[in-house]
C-alpha cells in the first residue's frame, strides 16, 4: 500500500493557515483572552467564602435550602484544600467557553433546523469534532494561539460544541409543525416565530444541551491544563507529572464539586426560565410531601437582592484590600505628580516599565502605564501623551522611528547593553558551543530549530543570513510558530533532557530559568545587536529633572533583568506588580540605588 501522507497534509494545512491567517488567530486570541481575563478577574476578586455564599444563594434560588447548604459546603471545601484560585480559573474557562459555544451553536442549530442542506453539511463536521481525540486539537491550538488558556478553550469549544448544535436543531425540529403554521397563519414574521414560538418550546431541549456542554467542557479542563490553561487542570496535571497522588486527588475533587454544582444548577435553571418548566416544577413540588421549609425558594427579586448584598460586601472588602497593595511612599519626591509610561509587550519592556512604575510610586509619583504597538508608542510620545519609554532598541531595530521622531524625543541612553539574537541549546547538550558546531548534528536535533513568529526580525535574519553563512540550510528547518510555543517546546525538551535548539535573544528570562548555552556567532551573521534605550518626550527632563537623572543612570545587568522577567512571568498576567515586588524583595536596596534621593534619607 502506498503511504498516504494525510498527517503531513493536515500539518501543512495547519502551517499554511497559521502563516496566512495569523492575523485572524491573533484577533481570536485577543478576544477570547480578554473574555477569560474578565471572567477570571470577577471570579477571583471576592473573598472565596463570599463568592461561595453568592453561589449558595443561587442554589437556594434555583433548588432550595438543602442544595444551597451542600453547595456552600462543597465550595468551602475547595477553598480549604487550597484549590480555590485554580477552581475559579477553571470555572472562568468553562463559563467563557460555554458562552462562546452557545453564541456559535444556537445559530448553527437554528440554521440546521431550517435547512436540510445545512443540517446535512453540519452533521459530519459535528461527528468529526466530537469523536476526534481532544488532544489532537491542542497541537494546532498551540500553533495558532500559543500556550495559555486560549488553546485549551479552543479545544474545549470544539469538543463540547456538537451537543449544543444537535440539541438546538432537535429542539426546534420537535416543535409541532401545526404550531409554527398557526403562528404563520396569524401573520407572524418568521423571525418572531423563531423567538416567540420555536425557541421557547425548544428551550427544554436546548437547556439539556447547556447541561451536556458544561459537563463536557469541565471534562476538558484537565486537558487544557496541559497546555498552560491553568486552573484545576494544571493542579491535576502537576499531580500526574510529579506522581503526587494527594495533589491529583484534591484537584480531582474540586473538579467534581464544580461539575455537580454546575450540573444541578443548569438543570434547575431550565425549570426557572421556561413557563412550561415553572409549571412542571410547581406540580412536582405540590406532589411532594415533607416539611415545606425544605422546599422554600426565594423569589427571583429576593435572590437578586441576596446576591447583590454579598457582591457589595465583597466589593467593599476588596476596596480595603486594594488599599494595602499600594506601595509605601519611601520618599515623597513627586508629590503625586503624574508620569505617563508606555511600553511594548515584550518581556524586557514589561519588566523595566513595571520596575519603574514601582520605583516612581515609592518616590511619590503617580505613574500610569499603557501597553502600545511600537508605532503608536513612538507617535504618542512625540505628541507628548507618553512621558517616558524604556523600550527603544537602538541603533538598529527602531532606527526608522528614531529617524522620524528624533526631534520630539530625548535619549537618556542605554540601560541595557548589548542585546543579541542567537540560537541557544540547553547546557546539557555537550560539544555545541558555536553556530559552526551545529553543522553535522542535524540528527541530534532532529533537523529542527524552534523559532518564533515568522514575521519577527530574528526569523528573517536566520533565513536570509545565518543558515547560509553557516551552511545549515537543508540540514535544519526553522520551525516558525510563536514565542510561547517555542518556550513551551523548550520547557518540555528541557524537562526530558532532550537535545533542542531554539532561536532566542538576550535579554530573556529563559536564561534565568534554564541553563542554556548561547551559541557564539563568530561570523556576525545575526548582526551586532542593539542597546535598549530610555527615551523621554521633548521637555520631560526640564519638567522632571530628578526622574530624568535617575533614568539616565539606569542600568541593569543581564542577570538582574532575566531574574526580574522570570519573577514577572511566574506571577502571571495581570500580576506584574507582584512579580516586581518579589524581585525587589530579593534585591534589597536596589530602589535606593536606582532612584537615590540624596540627603533626604
Amino acid at each position, binding site marked *: 500500500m502506498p503511504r498516504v501522507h494525510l498527517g503531513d497534509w493536515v500539518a501543512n494545512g495547519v502551517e499554511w493557515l497559521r502563516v496566512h491567517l495569523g492575523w485572524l488567530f491573533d484577533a481570536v486570541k485577543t478576544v477570547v483572552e480578554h473574555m477569560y481575563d474578565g471572567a477570571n478577574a470577577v471570579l477571583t476578586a471576592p473573598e472565596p467564602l463570599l463568592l461561595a455564599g453568592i453561589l449558595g444563594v443561587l442554589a437556594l434560588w434555583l433548588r432550595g435550602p438543602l442544595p444551597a447548604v451542600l453547595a456552600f459546603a462543597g465550595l468551602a471545601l475547595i477553598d480549604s484544600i487550597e484549590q480555590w484560585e485554580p477552581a475559579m480559573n477553571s470555572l472562568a474557562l468553562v463559563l467563557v467557553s460555554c458562552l462562546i459555544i452557545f453564541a456559535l451553536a444556537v445559530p448553527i442549530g437554528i440554521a440546521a433546523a431550517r435547512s436540510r442542506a445545512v443540517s446535512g453539511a453540519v452533521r459530519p463536521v459535528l461527528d468529526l469534532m466530537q469523536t476526534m481525540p481532544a488532544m489532537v486539537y491542542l497541537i494546532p491550538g498551540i500553533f495558532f494561539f500559543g500556550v495559555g488558556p486560549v488553546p485549551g478553550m479552543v479545544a474545549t469549544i470544539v469538543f463540547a460544541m456538537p451537543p449544543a448544535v444537535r440539541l438546538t436543531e432537535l429542539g426546534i425540529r420537535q416543535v409541532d409543525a*401545526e404550531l409554527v403554521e398557526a403562528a404563520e397563519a396569524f*401573520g407572524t414574521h418568521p423571525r418572531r416565530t423563531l423567538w416567540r*414560538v420555536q425557541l421557547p418550546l425548544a428551550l427544554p431541549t436546548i437547556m439539556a444541551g447547556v447541561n451536556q456542554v458544561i459537563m463536557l467542557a469541565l471534562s476538558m479542563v484537565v486537558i487544557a491544563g496541559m497546555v498552560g490553561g491553568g486552573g484545576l487542570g494544571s493542579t491535576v496535571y502537576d499531580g500526574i507529572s510529579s506522581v503526587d497522588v494527594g495533589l491529583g486527588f484534591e484537584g480531582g475533587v474540586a473538579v467534581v464539586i464544580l461539575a455537580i454544582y454546575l450540573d444541578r444548577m443548569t438543570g434547575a435553571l431550565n425549570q426557572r426560565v421556561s413557563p*412550561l418548566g415553572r409549571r412542571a416544577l410547581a406540580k412536582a413540588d405540590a406532589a411532594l410531601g415533607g416539611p415545606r421549609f425544605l422546599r422554600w425558594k426565594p423569589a427571583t427579586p429576593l435572590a437578586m437582592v441576596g446576591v447583590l448584598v454579598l457582591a457589595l460586601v465583597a466589593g467593599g472588602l476588596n476596596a480595603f484590600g486594594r488599599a494595602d497593595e499600594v506601595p509605601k511612599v519611601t520618599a515623597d519626591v513627586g508629590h503625586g505628580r503624574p508620569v505617563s509610561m508606555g511600553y511594548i509587550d515584550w518581556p524586557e519592556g514589561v519588566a523595566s516599565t513595571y520596575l519603574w512604575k514601582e520605583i516612581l510610586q515609592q518616590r511619590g509619583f503617580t505613574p500610569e502605564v499603557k501597553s502600545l504597538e511600537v508605532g503608536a508608542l513612538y507617535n504618542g510620545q512625540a505628541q507628548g501623551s507618553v512621558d517616558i519609554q524604556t523600550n527603544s532598541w537602538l541603533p538598529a531595530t527602531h532606527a526608522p522611528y528614531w529617524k522620524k521622531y528624533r526631534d520630539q524625543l530625548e535619549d537618556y541612553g542605554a540601560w541595557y547593553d548589548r542585546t543579541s539574537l542567537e540560537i541557544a541549546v540547553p547546557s546539557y547538550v555537550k560539544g555545541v558551543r558555536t553556530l559552526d558546531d551545529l553543522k553535522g548534528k542535524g540528527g541530534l536535533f532532529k533537523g529542527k530549530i524552534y523559532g518564533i513568529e515568522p514575521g519577527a526580525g530574528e526569523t528573517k535574519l536566520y533565513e536570509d543570513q545565518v543558515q547560509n553563512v553557516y551552511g545549515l540550510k537543508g540540514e535544519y528547518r526553522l520551525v516558525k510558530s510563536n514565542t510561547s510555543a517555542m518556550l513551551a517546546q523548550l520547557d518540555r525538551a528541557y524537562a526530558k533532557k532532550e537535545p533542542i535548539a531554539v532561536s532566542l535573544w538576550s535579554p530573556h528570562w529563559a536564561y534565568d530559568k534554564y541553563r542554556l548555552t548561547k551559541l557564539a556567532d563568530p561570523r556576525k551573521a545575526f548582526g551586532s545587536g542593539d542597546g535598549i534605550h530610555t527615551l523621554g518626550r521633548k521637555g520631560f527632563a526640564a519638567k522632571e529633572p530628578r526622574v530624568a537623572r535617575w533614568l539616565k543612570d539606569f542600568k541593569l545587568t543581564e542577570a538582574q533583568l532575566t531574574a526580574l522577567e522570570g519573577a514577572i512571568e511566574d506571577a502571571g498576567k495581570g500580576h506584574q506588580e507582584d512579580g516586581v515586588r518579589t524581585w525587589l524583595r530579593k534585591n534589597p536596596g536596589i530602589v535606593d540605588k536606582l532612584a537615590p534621593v540624596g540627603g533626604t534619607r
Partner: protein
Amino acid sequence: MSARESSRLEADGLYKVFGRRPEEAVDRLRAGAGREELRADGTTAAVIDASFTVEPGQIFVVMGLSGSGKSTLLRMLNGLLEPTAGHVRFDGRDLTALSDRELREVRARNISMVFQHFALFPHRSVLENAAYGLEVQGVPRAERHARATEALALCGLAGWEKSWPDELSGGMQQRVGLARALATDADLLLMDESFSALDPLIRRDMQDQLLELQKTLKKTIVFITHDLNEAMLLGDHVAVMRDGRIVQTGTAEDILVRPADDYVASFTQDVDRSRVLTAGAVMDTAVRGDEADCGCATATPDTPFAELCALSARLSHPVAVVDSARSPVGVVPRQRLVGFLGDERGAPVPCEAAPGGADACAAPVAGTPRPDGARRDDARRGDAPRGDARRGDTAGDDAPKVVTARA
C-alpha cells in the same frame, strides 16, 4: 350590503403542484393530462383548477377524503402555500400578487384560521393564546386582553382565561382556537377540519355553536371537512373534492338530491338526511291554495325534516307548507317523507301476491290516511315515477324544486 360585498372570496383556477418543474406540470394538466400521469414523473398535483366564490357571510364547506387536496386548497387561500397557478381574490385584492410583508398583514388582520389539532401554544395561557393574533397586530396589552376575554366569553370560556391549554378538554381547547381566530375580527375564517378531532357529542355541540355564532357574526367562512354530514349541516354551499379537483359545488340539497356523479352519490348514501333536508326540499309544490285552511299545524320551507316527520305523524292529512304570508307553497304527503328518507322516489308498486295477501301488502299505501279524493290525486301525482332523482333527472313538472333553505 356593499360594505360586505368587499369581503367576498374568490378562487380562480387554482393549481398546486409539488415536485420539480411545477409550471410545466400545470401546462400538462391544462392540456388534459391526468393526475396519475404526473405522479409517474414524481410530481404531485394536489389541487387542480379549483374555482369558486364565497359570498360574504356564507359558510363554504370543502368536503373530500384525505388526500383529495382540500387542506392544500385551504392553505392557498391565506397564502400559507403559494398557488402554482391561479388567483385568490379577497376584499378586492389579489392575494397571490402581494409581497410577503403585505400577505402577513392580511393574515394578521383579515384572515384567521382554526386548526384540526387546535394548535394552541402550550407555553401561553388561554388568555395569551386567544390574544395571540392581536399581539401580532401590535395591539396594546390592556386592549388585547380585553378583546381576547370577550372572544373567549363568546365561545363559552368565560372564567378560563388563566388556565393553560393542557388543562382543558379537547372541545374547550378548540373553543380557545376559535376564540383566537375570532379575536382578531378578521372577516374571513378558515377552518381546517376543526371539529374532526373531537368526539361526536362535542362535535355536535361545536357545530351548533358555530352556527349560533354565525347568526350574529356573519363571517365569511371556509370550512374543510371529510364528514359529509358536517358539510351538509354547516354549509351554505358545499364543494366536493376528489383527487385534487372540485367535482361538484352546490347547496347541501343540490349535493344530496342531485349528485354530479357516482362518487358524490356514494357519499350521500351515508348522510343523515333527516338533519339536512327541509320541508322546502321535500314538498310537492303543486298546491290548490286551500291546504292550510283546515287550521291544523303547518310547516314552513325551513322546517327541518325531523320536525316535518313529527308533524306528519300528528296529522291525518299531508302537511301543508306555508310561506311567511301563510299562503301555501307546497304539501308534504307522508309517502314522500318515507321516500326521501330511504332515497327512494319511485311510486308504490302494486302488490302482485294472492288476493288474500293483497290487502295486507297494499295496507301501507292504502292505509295512508287520505281525507278526500283530491288529496289522493295530489299524493299520487307527487309519488309519480320521475326517473332516477340521483342523476339530477328532473323529468316531470312536479319534481321537487330544490330550494336552498338558508339561501
